[in-house]
């Protein structure tokens, strides 16, 4: 017998069924809000932790030019962040360099106020022999390409001309001056010169700024040397010694004698976190036991003082650029005094010394905040923390270490806080946090109010390196180089909200990056005050 309720559907029943159906649909729709089906973001110990999301960038990042060297690719290219297309590029092979390893770079502000019309930048190339460290099945040495024209340590000054849309090599400053250096190039905050260092030679040079076809001049140059207390290589730094900083003098021809590989204490660079390989005897070289690791010199945004950092010696000299003499020595190691006096021991040549009882661990990248009242310096490999100095005093001898940025994950040799930069408003500090292969590295955001970690971007990319911030305060760009031969790219997030924006492609294993400033006021947010 037919069920009368099924055989006759009244309008009310029809509505009832309809409502039941709608309720079912609504309920089904609500299932998406049920908990536990997302792992995008979470909080650990009060810190926002977020996995990087692999997505492209769907918005313009502003009218900026983003410069990225290709390291083993042998050149540099400029990306228009507004359109994310390559604006121009240069390859140093084409200029007769038979092994250019385009390493670090920094741009001067555009004289016209518009980088798209033209600008100049300084690009160092690493020592040519470093190409042998990556296991390439290369015949580059057999073919004689690491000889006279492939030694590396060139300092190229390059101009971009907006009219032609091309880059042109303007000057090899290493040839002009006789000082060949291959690591950080750091312009002065006023844009009137730059410093360049090299931790294989322990030499840092201060250079004037030349424009166009003019030639660059050396303002002064120093060499660092370590005189260890122990004769055992393994104890060379941990048991203390004396640092001597010597002013270098040019020869009769006006040039210095540090061209190419001349002056190398070790044959290969200390790759990030490779400082301990030196004391373990795994780095060949003429005199590794005298190594200070003078890799870079960056500048106080107030434009008077510079920090010549010595990786192996756990700190850096404060150089007064008005006199070009060291003032004091800042030490990042926890448990040791933070500010050491420097004694001038010779006037011909000028030489200064500071004696340290021990070096607990090496330091690496360093940076001033935009106002200059704080300086941060990485303690790597043993302590794995970040020393924070109060640098607000006009007298660097009064600069004091006030705290350390620490994180429970920063234990052992890795992961290590690495490169540093600040948000344009100075409220946040951005650290790349390096993990060894095959791990993907992170980016940490630290509040400059209390120097506590406030956010972690995890799994950003293999081998995260330097950061750049757009000068409108909107975006931060983190470049990662994939240890030169693996995945590379640039991870972008917002400076203000710390929301992820996405990834930009980058070609060639970039190791460094900088956004070209349009005016002198932007220099302090550029590669002048942080590395």
């Amino acid at each position, binding site marked *: 017998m037919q069920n009368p309720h099924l055989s006759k559907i009244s309008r009310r029943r*029809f509505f009832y069924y309809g409502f039941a159906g709608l309720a079912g649909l609504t309920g089904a729709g609500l299932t998406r809000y049920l908990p536990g089906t997302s792992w995008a973001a979470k909080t650990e110990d009060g810190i926002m932790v977020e996995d990087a999301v692999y997505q492209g960038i769907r918005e313009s990042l502003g009218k900026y030019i983003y410069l990225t060297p290709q390291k083993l690719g042998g050149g540099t290219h400029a990306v228009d962040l507004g359109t994310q297309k390559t604006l121009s590029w240069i390859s140093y092979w084409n200029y007769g360099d038979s092994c250019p390893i385009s390493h670090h770079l920094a741009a001067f502000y555009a004289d016209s106020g518009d980088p798209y019309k033209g600008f100049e930048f300084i690009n160092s190339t690493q020592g040519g022999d470093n190409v042998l460290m990556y296991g*390439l099945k290369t015949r580059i040495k057999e073919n004689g390409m690491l000889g006279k024209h492939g030694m590396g340590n060139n300092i190229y000054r390059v101009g971009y001309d907006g009219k032609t849309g091309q880059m042109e090599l303007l000057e090899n400053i290493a040839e002009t001056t006789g000082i060949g250096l291959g690591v950080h190039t750091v312009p002065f905050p006023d844009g009137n010169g730059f410093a360049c260092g090299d931790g294989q030679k322990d030499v840092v040079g201060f250079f004037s700024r030349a424009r166009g076809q003019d030639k660059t001049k050396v303002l002064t140059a120093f060499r660092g040397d370590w005189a260890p207390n122990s004769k055992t290589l393994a104890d060379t730094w941990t048991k203390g010694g004396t640092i001597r900083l010597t002013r270098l003098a040019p020869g009769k021809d006006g040039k210095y004698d540090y061209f190419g590989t001349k002056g190398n204490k070790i044959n290969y660079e200390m790759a990030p976190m490779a400082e301990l390989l030196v004391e373990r005897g795994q780095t*060949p070289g003429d005199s590794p036991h005298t190594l200070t690791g003078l890799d870079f010199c960056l500048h106080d945004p107030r434009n008077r003082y510079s920090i010549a950092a010595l990786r192996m010696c756990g700190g850096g000299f404060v150089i007064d650029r008005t006199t070009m003499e060291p003032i004091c020595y800042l030490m990042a190691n926890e448990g040791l005094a933070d500010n050491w006096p420097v004694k001038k021991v010779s006037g011909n040549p000028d030489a200064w010394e500071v004696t340290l009882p021990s070096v607990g661990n090496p330091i690496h990248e360093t940076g001033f905040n935009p106002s200059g009242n704080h300086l941060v310096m990485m303690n790597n490999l043993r302590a794995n923390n970040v020393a924070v100095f109060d640098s607000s005093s006009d007298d660097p001898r009064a600069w004091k270490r006030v705290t350390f940025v620490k994180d429970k994950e920063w234990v*052992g040799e890795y992961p290590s806080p690495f490169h540093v930069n600040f948000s344009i408003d100075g409220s946040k500090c951005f650290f790349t946090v390096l993990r060894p292969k095959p791990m993907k590295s992170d980016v940490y955001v630290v509040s400059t109010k209390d120097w506590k970690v406030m956010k972690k971007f995890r799994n950003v990319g293999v081998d995260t390196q330097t950061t750049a911030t757009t000068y409108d305060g909107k975006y931060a760009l983190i470049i990662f180089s994939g240890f030169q031969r693996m995945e590379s790219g640039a991870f972008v997030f917002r400076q203000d909200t710390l929301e992820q924006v996405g990834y930009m492609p980058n070609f060639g294993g970039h190791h460094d990056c900088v956004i070209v400033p349009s005016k002198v006021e932007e220099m302090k947010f550029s590669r002048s005050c942080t590395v």
Partner: protein
Amino acid sequence: MNPVLRAHNLSRVYPTRRGTVAAVDGVSLEIGNTEFVAVCGRSGSGKSTLMALLGTLARPDQGALELEGTDLLSLSPGKLSRLRAKRIGFLLQTNSLLPGLTALDNAALPGILAGENPDSSYDRARQWLTRLGMEGRWDAFPQELSGGQQRRVALARALQHSPALLLLDEPTSNLDPRAEEEILHLLRELRDERKIAIFAVTHGDNLASLADRVLQMSAGRLTEGAVPRAPAKRSEHAAVLVPVFEAVPAGLAPSAPTAAPESDWRGPLSFFFATLVLGISLVFGFDRVVAWTQSRQLWAREEKKRVAEEIAFRHLRADMESVQAKGQGRVEADLFLQNYDPTRTFFILGPSLRAFYQADGRWEPIPLEDGSGNAETIREVLPTKTLVPLAFTLLPAKYDELIRGYFHIRFTGTMVVSETRDATGDLFERQDDYYIYLKDPRLTDDQVRQRNGWKPGSVVPPWMAMPSH
């Protein structure tokens, strides 16, 4: 007797291909609040148009119209619609019952549409249907009812709101004599008992004979006419009809609806769509629940894999710790394993190790001694370094010298990472390559210095860890 309806000089003209036709031409009329007015006339005389104008279903081209003192022509369409729904009832030539609704639903519809309480609407509908002798057929669909029964349902619907004016358009047309008598009987009762104004258009004398006043309509004009004489049998017939509405079919209780005829497609179609909606809802809902459950399971599985991957790639460090030449080309080395997260415990199976040296651009395998690596054992990875030994002998006649005097050696380690010691659940396999340069033991340090152009006394490492690549 107060007038319920006042019409003054109503006119309505229709354009045609042959010119305009005045369907209603200057009609003036008043209907009292209990008056029954009938308008007679031939087809096409304008009766229906007049009723449409009085019922505000059509708008006159000119004239004035009031219902209970309200100027109907000045009201907005919305207000007019609401007033019409509550104060005017219609019983038209066609019943216009909705076929998908029962008699009770049809009768209650005006109240429901007016937004009244459905229970009140249904109560009134039941009362009217009972009053009209339909108490046994509430659940019947229109197609199951006779013509007279359908007309009674339509009348119940018209009376739902107890209107002030009931408009009838040929209410007994197309009815058989018995059904006609039923309707006439009802109207007579309404006239006598419900105190309602009735305006009926008809061309039949039977209906007109009930009216208090009969008007004649011709060519759109209205004139007073004689009250027709009632048929001789009307009273007798009416007297016997009062109790003789069509009897409720035997065996049909009010709550037991009659089965819809199989030949009528509308009932089954409604059922089909209702069932379809219900079925789709159930299927869709079930699908979503299943999808959610599956997504939860997938998420849980992915989360486990993610955790395993996180352990493998974020917390497990493995690299070469030491390499020592022991003479005769024999080399002993240690790989270290380290847990970078002191809060987490995890285990690995392995590592299974292989070694290669580079010659002519190719990776030539190096046989490892027994005991190298640890392919069969599950071990916990500790925050302190755990060493995994390996040993081999290498004295190749030819090898690639990326750095002169050094072998280019690659170790490959494969590990399976698990959160648990029994290695159940989701596991993650990690494979690493570790590259070193190893000094050829057949060369002295001075030979190496010489071949590389290094200065006398410079450091000649017995082995070099290479940057990750």
